[in-house]
C-alpha cells in the first residue's frame, strides 16, 4: 500500500472516528484491486452482470399494430355491428393492455408533444413508433370519427367504467368547458416547443389517470385522478370532453369524416328514446353530433327497434343529408 493511500485512509478513519460507536472496528479496505477469476481460483466464474435491454423493437411494433387493430375493431363494432357489449369488452381489453400493462405509455395524447418538439427542434429525434401512434387515430378519424376514444384510449376506458348516473349537462356549459381543451393544447404546445432546457411535457406530467395504471404516483395526482373519477360518475368522461388536447385534433379530423355514429340511420323512426342515452352530450335534436361522439355505442342499446341495431350494412339507407354531412 502506498504511503499516500495509507495517509488518506488514516485521515478518513480519523474523520469517521467520532461517529463510530465504541465497539466498532476501525475499518480498513481489505483489498486494493478487484480479484479476478484467476486470482480467486477454484474454478470460480465471475457472474455476468444483468443488463436488461429496453423493450424489443418487435414488441414496440406490436404496440403500434395493436393500436391500429383496436381502432379498426372499434370502427367495425360500432358502425357495423352496432354492439355496445362488444365495444365495452374492447375498451376493457385496451384498458388492460395500453393502460395497466403498458402503464399508459406510449399514447397518442402525449405524443402530441413529441411530434411538436420534433417538428421544431432539428436535434430532437422522435422514434417511428411515436410518429405512428400519433397519426393512426387521426387518419381513422378522417374517415370514421373518434373510434380511438371509444374502444382504444385507456384514459377514456377508465372513465367510461365509472359512468353511473350521468346527467345531461347544459349545452352552453358543455361548449364553454369544451374550450378548455384548446387552452390545454395551446399550453402543451407552448411548453413543448421551448428550448430544450425549459421544455416541459405537461400532458404527461398532469395525466390524472396514469398513476392508477402504474399503481404508484404523487398523492396529489392520484387525488386529482380520483376526483375526475368521482365527477365522472355524474358528468360522463370529463377529461375527454373538456381537457383532452388530442380531442381537439380528433374533432377537426372528424368534421371531414365520411361515416360515423348515426341515429335512426335506416328508418325515420325519430321516437326520441335515445336522446337521454348519451352521457356525453353528443346527441342534439335527436341526431348524433359526430365531433363530440365518443364511440361508446350506448345510444344503440336504448333503441326499441332491434333491427336498427343489427341491419347489414348493404341493407341500410344511406345517410340522412340532414345529419350534418355538409360538404
Amino acid at each position, binding site marked *: 500500500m502506498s504511503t499516500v493511500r495509507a495517509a488518506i485512509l488514516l485521515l478518513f478513519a480519523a474523520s469517521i472516528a467520532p461517529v463510530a460507536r465504541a465497539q466498532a472496528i476501525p475499518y480498513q479496505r481489505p483489498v486494493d*484491486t478487484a480479484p479476478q477469476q484467476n486470482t480467486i481460483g477454484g474454478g470460480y466464474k465471475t457472474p455476468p452482470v444483468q443488463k*436488461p435491454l429496453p423493450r424489443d423493437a418487435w414488441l414496440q411494433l406490436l404496440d403500434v399494430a395493436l393500436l391500429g387493430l383496436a381502432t379498426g375493431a372499434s370502427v367495425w363494432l360500432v358502425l357495423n355491428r352496432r354492439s355496445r357489449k362488444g365495444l365495452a369488452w374492447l375498451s376493457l381489453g385496451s384498458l388492460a393492455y395500453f393502460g395497466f400493462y403498458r402503464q399508459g405509455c406510449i399514447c397518442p395524447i402525449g405524443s402530441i*408533444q413529441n411530434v411538436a418538439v420534433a417538428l421544431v427542434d432539428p436535434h430532437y429525434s422522435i422514434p417511428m413508433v411515436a410518429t405512428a401512434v400519433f397519426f393512426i387515430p387521426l387518419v381513422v378519424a*378522417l374517415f370514421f370519427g373518434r373510434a380511438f376514444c371509444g374502444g382504444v384510449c385507456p384514459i377514456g376506458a377508465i372513465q367510461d367504467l365509472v359512468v353511473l348516473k350521468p346527467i345531461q349537462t347544459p349545452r352552453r356549459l358543455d361548449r364553454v368547458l369544451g374550450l378548455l381543451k384548446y387552452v390545454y393544447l395551446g399550453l402543451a404546445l407552448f411548453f413543448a416547443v421551448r428550448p430544450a432546457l425549459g421544455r416541459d411535457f405537461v400532458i404527461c406530467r398532469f395525466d390524472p389517470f396514469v398513476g392508477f395504471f402504474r399503481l404508484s404516483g404523487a398523492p396529489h395526482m392520484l387525488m386529482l385522478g380520483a376526483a375526475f373519477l368521482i365527477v365522472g360518475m355524474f358528468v360522463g368522461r370529463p377529461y375527454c370532453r373538456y381537457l383532452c388536447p388530442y380531442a381537439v385534433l380528433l374533432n377537426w379530423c372528424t368534421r371531414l369524416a365520411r361515416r360515423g355514429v348515426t341515429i335512426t340511420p335506416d328508418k325515420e323512426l325519430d321516437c326520441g328514446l335515445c336522446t337521454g342515452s348519451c352521457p356525453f352530450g353528443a346527441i342534439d335534436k335527436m341526431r348524433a353530433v359526430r365531433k363530440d361522439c365518443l364511440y361508446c355505442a350506448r345510444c344503440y342499446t336504448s333503441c326499441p327497434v332491434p333491427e336498427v341495431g343489427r341491419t347489414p350494412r348493404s341493407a341500410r339507407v344511406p345517410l340522412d343529408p340532414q345529419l350534418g354531412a355538409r360538404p
Partner: protein
Amino acid sequence: MSNVTRRDLFRGTVLAAMGGGALFLARKANGQVVWQVDASRCINSRLGEAGVEACNLCTTECVVALSAVRAVNEYSRCGRCNICPAYFNITSAVNELGQPSEKLCPRDAIARKPIGKVDPEDPANNFYEYVIDESKCDGCGKCVMKCKEPLGLGSIVLRVRHDRCVNCNRCAISEKCPKDALRQLPVGQALG
C-alpha cells in the same frame, strides 16, 4: 367520379399533409434513446462526495413503484471483501463473529456468500460474493455511497433498468437530480 365533394378534397389534402409530416418525422427518426444514470455525475458514486448522506431522489421521484433505478454490482470491479462496507454498517458494534452487527441496506437486498471453502480457523482470509436482489432494491444509493473510494472499489453503481423504466418524456428523477446525472442517450451508449 362526379360525386366527389369539397369535403373529400379537403380530406385528401389533410391526408397528404399528414403523410408529409410523417415522412419528415421518419427521416429524423434515429434509434431509440433511453434514460441512463451518468455515474461520474451521480452524487452517490462521484468521488469527493464521501460523508454526504446518500441522495435518495432516485427512490422517491421515479414514477414507477419501487424505482426503475437499481444498484448494480459490477462483479469485475468488486473487491469481494470479507467486511464489505456496502453490505455491513461498518460503524455498528462488532458481534461475536468479528463482524459489524448491522447491515447497511435498509431493504436487506444484498446477499453475502463465501467463494469456495471457508477456513473455520480464519474466515477473514476468504473472498465473498455480494449479489444484489433487484426485486428488493429501490435504488436508494446507500451502498453505492459506501462502496466507492476510499472505503471500497466503486463496483456498485446506480443504473436505470430499461425493462422497468417507462421512458417518460421528461424523467421525473432528472427534474430533481441536483447533478443532472440522468441523461437521455442512445441504447448502446454506456455510461460510467
